[in-house]
């Protein structure tokens, strides 16, 4: 076991130990300060009676649809903005502006347009992640060394081939970074939106915990949300990103 891992495990053992001690001493009432054991129990029952699993599946379905649409749209718009000067000078500024807007600020607009519905949920996920993906693709395309394009042209590549064989591959590291940032924005805005919508997602389970004064459930759902976020970010995106950077010789 590496030294780093030992330190990490020790830290969490001590943290949970202190937490358990404080809970055991009953410094605060349980609805304010739950014990780790209580949280663990809720987690187990939550997975046993499938409420958590259903919550995860529903949230995942929403994010996959919304994020999928975001990827397609974002890539397309990003590539166009990156290559076409007029679009960059017009639409590009709008994208930069929207990027500065915290994604949850789309919620009132989405609710007014689509009501309290699945569509509103999707809209928030899409709007939350779209601009990061556009900017990632746009930056990537703008930073493609012109010599790659010249080299490809001298070897006879033209039109769409330049995009598929040179521009997209050359911009891939930046595109992947955009995807990664887009995903974390999508995940955050979905959770925020679910707090307000009765739709059985994880955010809704979190809100239910509050309404029932069940602090154990609040913490348990928070842990689930954190774990999903970390797993996707670390195990999927970071891996892809590292692999791409390594292959491109950027690492």
């Amino acid at each position: 076991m590496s030294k780093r891992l030992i330190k990490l495990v020790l830290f969490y053992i001590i943290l949970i130990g202190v937490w358990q001690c404080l809970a055991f001493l009953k410094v605060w009432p349980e609805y304010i300060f739950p014990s780790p054991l209580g949280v663990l129990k809720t987690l187990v029952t939550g997975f046993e009676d499938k409420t958590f699993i259903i919550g995860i599946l529903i949230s995942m379905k929403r994010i996959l649809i919304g994020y999928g649409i975001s990827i397609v749209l974002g890539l397309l718009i990003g590539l166009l903005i990156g290559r076409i000067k007029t679009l960059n000078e017009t639409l590009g500024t709008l994208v930069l502006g929207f990027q500065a807007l915290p994604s949850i600020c789309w919620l009132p607009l989405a609710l007014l347009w689509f009501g309290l519905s699945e569509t509103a949920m999707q809209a928030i996920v899409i709007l939350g992640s779209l601009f990061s993906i556009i900017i990632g693709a746009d930056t990537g395309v703008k930073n493609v060394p012109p010599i790659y394009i010249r080299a490809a042209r001298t070897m006879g590549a033209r039109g769409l081939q330049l995009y598929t064989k040179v521009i997209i591959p050359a911009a891939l590291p930046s595109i992947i970074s955009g995807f990664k940032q887009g995903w974390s924005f999508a995940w955050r805005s979905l959770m925020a939106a679910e707090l307000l919508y009765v739709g059985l997602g994880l955010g809704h389970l979190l809100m239910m915990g509050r309404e029932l004064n069940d602090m154990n459930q609040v913490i348990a759902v928070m842990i689930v949300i954190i774990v999903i976020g970390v797993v996707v970010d670390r195990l999927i995106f970071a891996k892809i990103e590292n692999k791409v950077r390594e292959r491109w010789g950027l690492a």
Partner: protein
Amino acid sequence: MIKREYEQFQFQGEELKKLAEIKPHKLIDLRGAVCPHPLNVIRDTISSLNDKEILQAICDHEPTAKENVPRFSARRGYPFGIIEQNGLWQIFIQKIEKAQPRLQVVNVSKAFKTSDGNFTALNEVNLTIHQGEFVCLLGPSGCGKTTLLNLIAGLDKPTKGEIWSNGNRVTGPGSDRVVVFQEGALFPWLTVMQNVEFGLKILKVDGKIRKALALDYLKLVGLDEKFHNSFIHQLSGGMKQRVAIARALAMEPSVLLMDEPFAALDVYTRETLQEELQNIWSESHKTIVFVTHNVQEAALLGDRVIVFGKNPGRIKSEYEIDIERPRKIDNPEVFLNTKWITNDLREEIEGSEYEDEVRGVAQR
């Protein structure tokens, strides 16, 4: 090399008799001439010949490159015969109609828009390059040599004038004219093999043929097989340029355009690659246009060295380098040519990076 050319034109039996019977229209007697410049005498006489006329030059010793007696190759449009009789060497030359030029640059100007108005990168440039020639474009930065290469490649369009390739007007890039760039033009997301196959894939060449071609050319440029599946950042600078040359050659273009391909390499790697490029060229009979700012490199590699001046970019002078191949960097004739061209450049260019270049050459 000179021996090989002799063999090529060695006449025997009947042919020898025929050649001896030729009554030349013009005769130059170089017996007793202490050559410095019989070259110029012969060259001037050729230009005054009619197409049908035959020139005979007589020397009292074997014409060797060292003594600067020209060897007129078929490549330049002059066939020749050499026979030896009683210790006298007779050279027969007939002017033939020149083949269609491989590349023709006609009155080409190129201007770029900059923040302080128009910048004339090239002004009224004319240049004719024949099939199989190795032409070096030499000059300081900002003289438009790379601009001209890009125009020939079709990557840019001239502001004025025309460029012709094999009788066709150049309007864009073509797979008959492939460019080898300075370091950094290989695709990092592809392996060495995939890079070499890139152009063939664009041309929709069948997978098996593509692979075979790529392997052939990687072998020709001397890249170790264990690097065939490496990624580009795992290669050294010299290996990268080998791959870049292989990638261009794999398209089998008749013209190879090289934009300072060895400029970023260390001295030893550069010398090796310069030698290998000469071999590749003499085996493949490609037309090579080679841009460089290194006088020595130009004198070493070129049949012709076109010297560019700047402000505005234009052709200043032209040298024919008539030294047998393969040439080595320590060949005294290469050194001499380097010195002449350097002097020529020094006259015009002051205070540019040429000072360093000159000092570098003087030290060697």
